[in-house]
């Protein structure tokens, strides 16, 4: 029996079941490298997870306070419901269940807290907020900003503005709709640039000023006493003179009448170059 006949005979003896089994085995062996090749091929996938909006955590990293918390500035000192406000300070830690921010004695909800780091806290003015002081508690240690935060709306009339004059780098501080007030406390913050800012009282006003250096910049605090009569729309309070490189903002403002009643105030524009 030659080799060909032997092979034929082997096939003849092979049962149909075995034959199918062998065929399946051969196909499986052939399919294995193909499957490996397909598996290692780069696959184009589209993950819907990547399209889902990611919520930013309020605090990414808690910075352990090295001392009691301090507030340098509440920026801006006014805002309507939904507006962002920054509390600049130090030793603020981070968001924690034992830490909170309050506005006019009412704690700001977690939904209105945007971010909280060791040096600043950002929150949105709550829809039911009222004007008042801003207080924070960091792990039980409390501090209050010395200024007043005003919740403004369409009815807020009193506005502080720095209006450029014809003289270069000089502006007038103008209070519109003074509403029978006669005293102003204002902070000018030098955000950018070196040098001294010169404040001069306008005729009919008296000025007391002091300068404070803070980690966020130099603050020029001015207390201005002025007179208004019924029907006065605007009153010039100060002349502000800066140098070319400086950028100045109105960081705080409070006006009150002779009875000490504080009137809600806003500033426009806040940061100016003139």
């Amino acid at each position, binding site marked *: 029996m030659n080799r060909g006949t032997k092979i*034929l005979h082997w096939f003849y003896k092979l049962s149909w079941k075995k034959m199918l089994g062998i*065929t399946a085995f051969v196909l499986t062996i052939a399919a294995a490298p193909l499957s490996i090749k397909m598996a290692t091929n780069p696959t184009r996938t589209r993950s819907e997870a990547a399209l889902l909006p990611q919520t930013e955590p309020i605090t990414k990293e808690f910075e352990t306070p090295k001392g009691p918390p301090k507030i340098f500035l509440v920026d801006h000192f006014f805002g309507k419901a939904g507006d*962002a406000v920054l509390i600049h300070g130090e030793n603020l830690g981070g968001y924690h269940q034992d830490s909170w921010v309050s506005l006019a004695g009412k704690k700001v909800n977690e939904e209105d807290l945007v971010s909280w780091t060791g040096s*600043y806290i950002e929150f949105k003015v709550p829809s039911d907020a009222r004007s008042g002081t801003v207080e924070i508690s960091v792990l039980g240690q409390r501090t209050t900003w010395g200024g007043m935060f005003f919740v403004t709306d369409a009815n807020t009339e009193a506005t502080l503005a720095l209006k450029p004059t014809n003289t270069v780098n000089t502006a007038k501080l103008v209070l519109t709709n003074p509403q029978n007030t006669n005293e102003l406390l204002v902070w000018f913050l030098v955000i950018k640039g070196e040098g001294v800012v010169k404040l001069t009282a306008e005729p009919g006003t008296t000025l007391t000023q002091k300068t404070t250096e803070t980690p966020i910049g130099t603050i020029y605090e001015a207390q201005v006493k002025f007179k208004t009569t019924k029907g006065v729309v605007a009153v010039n309070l100060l002349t502000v003179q800066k140098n070319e490189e400086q950028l100045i903002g109105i960081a705080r403002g409070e006006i009150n009448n002779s009875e000490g009643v504080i009137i809600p105030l806003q500033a426009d*524009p806040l940061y100016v170059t003139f």
Partner: protein
Amino acid sequence: MMITTNGLNSQNASSSAEATYNWKLIAGLKMLAIVLIIIVAAGVFMWQRKKTQAQIQQSKTGFASLINQGTDGAILTIPYQQTLYKHFGNAINPQVELPVKTTKGYKNLDFLIDSGAVVSAVPNTMAPDLGVNLSELTRITIEGFAGQKTFAYKGEFIIKVGNDEVAIPVVFSENSQASNILGRIGFFDEFTIEFNAETQKIIITRRANA
């Protein structure tokens, strides 16, 4: 007997030859069956492969048509502007001049196309020209390059890209020295922006289903 025996032998030889023929036929059929199964399996595999390749080709054609649309259907083409930097030498400045709707009609403004910016931004000093009252807009904070926060007001402005007039979300930055920026929201998701190094041009195309 001999005759009979011979006859029997002849019959035996005949049936033996028939038996040999039969088993060989069966063996051949079995071999053929195996070959057929393998051919069918290979055929199915080849068909599947061809189908996949056809699909890939189709998707490539789809992309190619989009790319072609990017050049052929361009609504605005801007030549590259080079800026000479002290430390880096020449670099492309993706600056584009677009008409912005103001209270006194359209006014051309330079914008920096910035895919790194979430939203378009202009300085707040632009607000009066655009007829926008900032005190009516929601104040937010935006983060700059070094992570420093600046206040801005969320609004909208109308620009012309080619002949298309589009309303784009914008923030009015309190940093009056800030550049005009065209960011992602409303611009990058409505237009295809191609930086073509071959032609040294920025080609802006409207999205097919926009």
